[in-house]
């Protein structure tokens, strides 16, 4: 019965969303406070209903209700509980329910935390949020019913793809979706601002925490996905420029730009219409990502079985949302008043450069991702665009971006002293040079790009901390004063330092693992030894292991360095009994500065085993760097200025309404 209740709750949620999309919007236009007041409770009701539907789906998976098709196709009674739950979003239908649950959750968060928002703005934001909800609820109900029954129910299910039976599935999709869908808040605020016809620093203060929260979750989601691919796919790569990875990278790049341009709106009341455009584009890229993954137009590790009707539906949804919002932007944005002036060499100038480079980088990734689709549609042949393309286009754009990232925070608003800043940065330049020399000495030269990577990483890392050190007058004032200053530093400043320094660490990790990786592929018999870097691995043998829903062969290797035993590596070759699928489970040993990575292949029939062995220098720094960036985002969220609901107490600049007809809504305040 629960699945039917869940289905019914989704239908009810659609009805509530329709009301929430219409009534408050009309109320805001006509200045009817009672109509506008519907938005908050409706958002809560919508979240409650969708949350209930999601819970029934999880319940069906936990109790292994094999009368539900979705459970039959993706679960099995022997599957561990964690994967029964996580498996709910390990398939198309369930992941779409997760998507709308999070969407409705953000709407409910506005209803709860947005008490100090002006009523018309809140009503419009929630109405736009509900419109997106209507589209996706219709999509689920029309093309992807997660509650469909099977009659007669089979005795047991088909089990979940073994690749997905990993703790990564429990974390990667929810955080990724929190990021994707979180940008819907910036989008809804942007559309509401366009309807109202005004953008002011207070608006930016409301938008920033949502954007920051979405960015933080997306960073974590992308990093988790990358880490998951690294330890699970068996060749130690962490980024494949797979179309679906690009689909998550594009909103990240655009969202990063939005985060920075919103600062200019907040602090200097400039770049307003550009920020609105970025908010629309960021969420549009999230939608395009959803389309690419869910429509099955691209072959990718993420594509589930394909149904053309879904692709057409999402394409329609995409056209309406993106086309409609850009049309509204085109109609209303030119009337927005431009704000404060600034010289090219200034904090604003640096942030404009940041936005320009990030937007260009996003565009190149978009080109590379969609070009195969265009060619295919035009019948010009099937192509694929891989890592070499992105290395040749994306990476060159990141070099000036990271270089400028360090300089930007040293520049003052409006007009900056170029020579003075360069002088202060000399010490960072010296440290970067030193890092390159150390890298040369360690690696015995190395390709030029690797040294560029090391220089950039050191430049970003030390640059971030130099700016922090200057803020707290480290080594200039007595230590006690510096510590007091550090404690009094706004959380947002700490957040920026951490995020920028984290990017530096991540670049170091990317560089090390891309250029200095060593690889061995060979057949090995028990008793043999294989060498990599300065490690010796001796193969002890293989023993059978029985898991909850798989059988495995586990190999044991003793790792020695300079004749001392430093550890064991035990990679497995698993065979999942229900699906009949094999899976190689790699063993990884990390020292904090490098990973030893060992994956087991097939037995060759004579007792020899194929193995793939890697030594990945610096790769742990990639994960550490991403973690530090996420931590920076979280710290920054704690800033008092950005606390949701707090900004309204601050001065709000009187703004002249754009169109008299729209001003009526303001009377109700």
């Amino acid at each position: 019965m629960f699945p039917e209740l869940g289905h019914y709750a989704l239908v009810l949620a659609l009805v509530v969303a329709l009301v929430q999309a219409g009534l408050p919007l009309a109320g805001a236009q006509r200045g009817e406070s009672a109509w506008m007041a519907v938005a908050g409770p409706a958002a809560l009701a919508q979240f409650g209903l969708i949350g209930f539907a999601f819970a029934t789906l999880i319940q069906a998976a936990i109790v292994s209700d094999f009368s539900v098709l979705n459970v039959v196709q993706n679960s099995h009674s022997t599957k561990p509980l964690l994967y029964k739950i996580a498996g709910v979003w390990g398939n198309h239908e369930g992941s779409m329910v997760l998507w709308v649950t999070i969407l409705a959750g953000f709407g409910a968060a506005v209803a709860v935390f947005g008490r100090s928002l002006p009523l018309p703005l809140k009503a419009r934001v929630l109405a736009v949020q509900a419109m997106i909800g209507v589209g996706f609820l219709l999509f689920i109900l029309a093309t992807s019913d997660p509650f469909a029954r099977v009659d007669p129910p089979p005795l047991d299910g088909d089990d979940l793809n073994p690749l997905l039976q990993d703790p990564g599935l429990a974390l990667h999709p929810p955080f990724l979706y929190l990021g994707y869908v979180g940008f819907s808040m910036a989008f809804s605020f942007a559309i509401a601002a366009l309807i109202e016809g005004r953008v002011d620093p207070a608006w930016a203060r409301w938008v920033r925490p949502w954007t920051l929260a979405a960015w933080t979750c997306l960073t974590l989601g992308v990093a988790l996905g990358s880490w998951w691919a690294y330890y699970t796919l068996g060749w130690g790569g962490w980024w494949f420029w797979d179309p679906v990875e690009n689909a998550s990278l594009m909103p990240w790049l655009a969202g990063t730009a939005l985060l920075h341009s919103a600062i200019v709106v907040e602090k200097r009341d400039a770049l307003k219409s550009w920020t609105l455009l970025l908010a629309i584009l960021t969420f549009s890229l999230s939608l395009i990502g959803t389309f690419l993954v869910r429509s099955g137009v691209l072959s990718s590790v993420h594509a589930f079985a394909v149904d053309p009707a879904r692709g057409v539906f999402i394409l329609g949804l995409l056209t309406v949302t993106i086309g409609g919002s850009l049309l509204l932007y085109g109609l209303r944005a030119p009337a927005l008043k431009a704000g404060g002036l600034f010289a090219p060499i200034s904090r604003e100038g640096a942030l404009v450069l940041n936005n320009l480079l990030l937007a260009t980088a996003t565009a190149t990734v978009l080109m590379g991702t969609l070009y195969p689709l265009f060619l295919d549609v035009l019948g010009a042949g099937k192509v694929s665009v891989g890592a070499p393309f992105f290395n040749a286009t994306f990476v060159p754009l990141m070099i000036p971006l990271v270089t400028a990232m360090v300089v930007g925070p040293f520049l003052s608003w409006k007009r900056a002293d170029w020579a003075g800043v360069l002088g202060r940065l000399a010490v960072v330049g010296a440290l970067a040079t030193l890092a390159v020399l150390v890298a040369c000495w360690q690696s015995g030269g190395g390709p030029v790009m690797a040294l560029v990577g090391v220089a950039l990483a050191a430049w970003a890392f030390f640059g971030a901390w130099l700016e922090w050190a200057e803020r707290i007058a480290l080594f200039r004032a007595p230590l006690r004063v510096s510590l007091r200053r550090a404690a009094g530093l706004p959380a947002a400043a700490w957040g920026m330092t951490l995020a920028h320094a984290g990017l530096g660490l991540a670049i170091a990790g990317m560089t090390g693992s891309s250029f200095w990786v060593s690889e061995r592929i060979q057949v090995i018999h028990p008793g043999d030894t294989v060498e990599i870097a300065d490690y010796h691995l001796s193969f002890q043998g293989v023993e059978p292991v029985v898991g909850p829903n798989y059988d495995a062969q586990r190999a044991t290797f003793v790792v020695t360095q300079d004749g001392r035993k430093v550890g064991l590596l035990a990679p497995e070759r698993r065979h999942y009994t229900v699906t009949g699928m094999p899976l190689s489970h790699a063993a990884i040993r990390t020292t904090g500065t490098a990973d030893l990575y060992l994956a087991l292949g097939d037995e060759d029939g004579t007792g020899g085993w194929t193995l793939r062995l890697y030594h990945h220098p610096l790769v742990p720094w990639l994960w550490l760097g991403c973690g530090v960036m996420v931590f920076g985002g979280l710290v920054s969220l704690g800033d008092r200025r950005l606390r949701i609901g707090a900004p309204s107490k601050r001065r709000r600049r009187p703004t002249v309404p754009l169109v008299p007809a729209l001003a009526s809504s303001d009377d109700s305040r």
Partner: protein
Amino acid sequence: MTPKKKRRLIVLALVLLSFGTATALVLTAFQDHLVFFYSPSDLQEHPPGIRGIRVGGLVEAGSVQRQPDGTTVRFTITDLKTKVTVSYTGLLPDLFREGQGVVAEGQLRPDGLFEAHEVLAKHDEKYMPPTVADALKRAGQHVTSTLVQ
């Protein structure tokens, strides 16, 4: 020139510079790094030269042979009309199996052997790479849907 106009001009110049550079990068990268997809029949009809390409089709049953070095594998990809022999050194993907869809990326050697540096298999039981399904269809084989068992 007013400061505002000057600022606009500088921003415009930067935009042009940035997008111009990016366009140039993208165009040259497309020239060099685009990887075309071939079916075994295409390979025979229009040999691609030394360019890196992808070949897709089914792994012919009984064709997988491990070479004496232990790590190199040879197998035949077929679109059920034409075949091509592929050589690959390394660990094959977990789901690589005879009779199933596979895509290999690499170069065609003058002697007709396809030397792959990457082999992609389908990643679950229900799914066939669309490019492979399409290659089979073009070779005249009946493929009812993307769900090919």
